[in-house]
């Protein structure tokens, strides 16, 4: 989703979380390590939960249509 909707974003793996940086937005420093990390894979952790993705979309101001298209279960609604 980030590759498609937040091009040129940057991931940085820390001890506890991933840090995500996109454009001039503040860093998102609290994405839990899911199946993307080696340690997470070994521990058999679930993939990143939908709520975290929703939060990232809202916080970073990612295009909602794009996010919904990439992750349909988000079901985010446009601000009116």
């Amino acid at each position, binding site marked *: 989703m980030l590759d498609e909707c937040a091009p040129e974003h940057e991931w940085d793996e*820390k001890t506890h*979380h991933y840090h995500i940086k996109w454009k001039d937005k*503040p*860093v998102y*420093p*609290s994405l839990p390590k899911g199946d993307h990390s080696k340690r997470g894979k070994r521990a058999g952790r679930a993939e990143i939960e939908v709520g975290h993705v929703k*939060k990232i979309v809202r916080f970073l101001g990612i295009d909602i249509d794009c996010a919904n298209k990439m992750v349909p279960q988000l079901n985010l609604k446009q601000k*009116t």
Partner: protein
Amino acid sequence: MSQSAAHERAYAVIFSFHDAVEGRGFFARVLARGRALMAFEDDEGWWLYGVEPGAIAAPGATPREAYSAFRQAFTKVLFDFSSDAESYEEFAYRVREFFQATDTQEELRWQVALEQFRTGKLEPEESIASLPRWKAEQGYNVDVERLDAKRTFTPDANQVDEYALPARRCRLNPRGIVRPNPHFRYSRDARRVRSRA
């Protein structure tokens, strides 16, 4: 009306966290009074979404579980900052930057939830209704203090982590002083204290 907030099962909450963090050559205390939205998501259970700070969220099967996960995530964010920071100043800067990054969309939902709660449109379930009530108008902030430079310590600085619902209503009197709602016991107690004085 923004989003589906009018019928959302979501509650505005306020929290107070107290962390002690070790870093490279420093020991710091972080005191945070922030706000978050406790929302029930269909199929996903409860989520506590940060408003101030905005860049944090955590789930749980119950509101209490979501709060515990959120609390732990908050501490882990601080620990990641301390691992990266080359100095206390850098750590303090990162913490303040994190806290001050408000989620503006979440803030709108928080305000709607606050209004719904205060007008009685949303009756909280028991696990939420039993939370203490704090003034929502008191402001939100983070305080980072370097402890290894301190010479004196006192037990008065100890604080318990907690989360709360906003008090129903605060009003401004003509002098602009915030007074609590007179229908609440807190204010009756406060009046008693004043009359004794």
